[in-house]
């Protein structure tokens, strides 16, 4: 099986403000982007499962054709830098998404 990390050009996570983390998956090939988009594999359900989150904590999941990209924004359980936080910039939360099988 092919993993998302093998197809994506950019696969990253970052704070979108201190209370949300946004995951970006960007492609450099329109046909690959279309293939992933049309497969419907990246859905709120899949993200909820991978990240062990209730669906309501997935605030956005949007495809942006011009950028050949998918953006997924999830709620933080603990806001950036507060007691109990593990990733102040939210920059290393993308790893589980890399292994998503296409």
């Amino acid at each position, binding site marked *: 099986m092919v993993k998302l990390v093998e197809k994506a050009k*950019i696969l990253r996570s*970052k*704070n*979108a*403000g*201190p*209370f*949300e983390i*946004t995951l*970006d998956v*960007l492609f*450099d090939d329109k046909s690959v982007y279309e293939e992933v988009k049309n497969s419907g594999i990246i859905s709120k359900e899949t993200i909820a499962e*991978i*990240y*062990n*989150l209730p669906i*309501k*904590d997935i*605030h*956005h999941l*949007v495809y*942006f054709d*011009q*950028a*050949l*990209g998918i*953006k997924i*924004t999830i*709620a*933080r359980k603990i*806001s*950036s*830098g*507060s*007691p*109990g*936080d*593990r*990733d*102040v*910039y939210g920059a*290393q*939360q993308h*790893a*589980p998404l890399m*292994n998503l099988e296409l």
Partner: protein
Amino acid sequence: MQNSIKILSPCGILGYGFPKEPFLKAFQEKIHGIVVDAGSTDAGPHKLGANVSIVSRRALKKDLSIILEKGLQHRIPVIIGSSGGAGAKTHVELTLEVVREILAERSTHAKIGIIWADFKQQTIINALEEGRITPLSANIPQLTKEKILDTKTIVAQMGHEPILKALKQKCDIILCGRSYDPSPFAALGIYHGMDPGLSYHLGKILECGALCAEPGTTKDSILGTLYHDSFTVKALNPIRKCTPTSVAAHTFYEKEHPFILHGPGFTLNLEECEFNEVAEGIIEVRNSQYLPDKEMKIKLEGARQVAFRTFVIAGVRDPLLISQLEEVEKEVLVQVKSYFAEISEADYQVNFYHYGKDAVLGEQEPSSFNGHEIGVMFEVLAKDQELANSICANVRSTFLHYGYQGRKSSAGNLAFPFAPSDIEFGPVYEFSIYHLMQINRDPFLLEIVEV
């Protein structure tokens, strides 16, 4: 009215540094202003709560010296967004002090516009009581009067309006308090009669320096040109290049939605944007739409102190301990609580992090552990520093010598890299305010200083 307006962004955060040559190369063309963002909430609530900066004073002065020299030489405005990092009074004052120092060293005069972004607690309490405050997303708690009173520093992100006032007063240098990152860039475009949608969208791209190029970095210059019906972006360093995808992808960056961006008093809709390469490495963008909101709302940010921290970093290499690390930690905590039975458990909290196992993702880690050593970090959060130190010392000594089931290494359980092992961290903050406030008039005050 000008046909084109060129805006130079030297780097993503003032004080991150940038190579001088690409920056200077920009002046082969007519530049209308140098704009640089200095702020972010990315580094957590501590900068705002403790009133400290993201960058060192030394780096701030080094970057500013280069920028001010060119700005004053070419008689073009230099605008700094979110001065000093969090953009509160202390941060702006530090930036002003460094600007004065540089001007004095060069015996140069300048007109400086300072735009304050601080808000009094009472102003926010009044707004709360009038129902003008709402959380920014569903997982942010409603604001309370108690939280506002606990929050010593409160700022709001400004739009282009107050910066426009400073430009109209012909300021040479404009130091903004907390700003919506694209605002200082947009203000310069709007001042020259350009479209606000294109001006803000260009600002969104320029505020990170050369991050929209390939390879991307916040530590290099980028040049934006506004026209009446489009804008273009190009990298100045020959080792980088902008492409339609790199620029479109940057529109995505660190925002919750890919093409709907909320700013102070408006929404940017970038869904219909076109990104085209019009010449080698020059990317043209069209159709960025600026939609004014019905109500003017600004984003408030505040941080309050919630605890004091002491922590320890240690390595665990013994496989017998690794196999039952979590159980051992639970037993260690039982002993610590029993020893300090007179202290209320509500006054402190102990957290363990296992680097090499699941420290980064916590409960969300899908991979199982298969290593041979674990970096253990434990922290004690307590209501005062003395208590954090005392509890942490006891956790450390109990953990170090704890005789767990089946132990063979009876001399000690932890490999400390440092002596002393316990690190006193100081106060810990949280974002206590991250809410929208509806306003009826521009609350940001412009002060003009001539030096």
